């Protein structure tokens, strides 16, 4: 189910430094975000492993933590959610350049440094959330387009033989005719054949072609 786009974005801060986490939480809440703080990644990772729905739009993840390191937590997160589904911004001290590179290679979307520069943090958070939203809208649009194309395909591929079957059988109601019954049976066979193809459809067996000026259909190979 899609979240209400007007609802405040929900951020998760994972940082063992309670003070820094509290400061970040307060600053982001003032900016209208809903913020949850965890001092260790273990609870969140457990919920991911149990396939529970993720309630956060973005995670701010500290690089260096005692229990599970930020990098290890990130690697685990990326097994379940890619960087478009769940953006992760690493939080690091100025001196940790190696950690930043490692984190970006492991799938972090971006990083910010401590102590938090609010303007920089907000800009990076907003960018990641906007990209996430654009991707989500694009996927929805593609899904609608695919459904429309499939409906056109079904209309074309099934309605034609259906019309042949119905037409011939209607005539046979008044005057039995084996040749017409044969045509109707062939048309029904064709529908059965098309339905079976659709059941086993994969992308590689479909080719999108133009049906009319503003409509496409799938040519089923």
């Amino acid at each position, binding site marked *: 189910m899609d979240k209400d786009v007007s609802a405040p974005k929900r951020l998760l801060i994972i940082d*063992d*430094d*309670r*003070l*820094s986490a*509290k*400061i970040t939480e*307060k600053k982001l809440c003032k900016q209208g975000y809903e913020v949850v703080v965890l001092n260790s990644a273990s609870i969140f990772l457990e919920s991911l492993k149990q396939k529970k729905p993720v309630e956060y739009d973005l995670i701010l993840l500290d690089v*260096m*933590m*005692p229990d599970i390191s930020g990098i290890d937590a990130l690697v685990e997160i990326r097994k379940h959610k890619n960087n478009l589904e769940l953006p992760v911004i690493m939080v690091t*001290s100025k*001196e940790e350049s190696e950690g930043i590179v490692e984190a970006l290679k492991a799938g972090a979307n971006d990083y910010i440094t*401590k*102590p938090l520069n609010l303007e920089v943090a907000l800009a990076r958070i907003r960018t990641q959330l906007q990209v996430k939203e654009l991707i989500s809208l694009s996927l929805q649009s593609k899904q609608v387009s695919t459904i429309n194309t499939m409906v056109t395909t079904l209309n074309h591929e099934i309605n034609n033989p259906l019309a042949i079957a119905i037409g011939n059988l209607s005539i046979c109601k008044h005057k039995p005719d084996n040749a017409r019954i044969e045509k109707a049976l062939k048309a029904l066979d064709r529908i059965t054949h098309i339905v079976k193809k659709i059941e086993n459809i994969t992308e590689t067996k479909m080719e999108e072609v133009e049906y009319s000026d503003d409509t496409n259909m799938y040519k089923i190979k």
Partner: protein
Amino acid sequence: MMFDESKLMSHFDGDKEMITELIEVFDDSYKESLTALKDSLKEEDFKKIELHAHTLKGMIANFFAEDLRVAAYDIEKMGHNSEISGYESQLAVLDEKLPMLITELRSFCG
């Protein structure tokens, strides 16, 4: 002053009420981290030394007390390099001056 007043006020948008609240969190948190750091120095557990010094450094950085931040960072580097000889002087700085920092911060916020 052990901390940079103008950077502190700028960082918190002049919100002394928020700073006052955070000083109390700092007062609890630093003691926990400093105790853990001392334990890990006694055990010569380099990874823990690096972690606890790193956490302490992060907390201190929020209040722009640069000398104390550098002291914590020096110990963090020692832990990272598995070479802790000479840590005592930096630990003494933290031990002695962190309570003084808290006092100064409280006084600043009135």
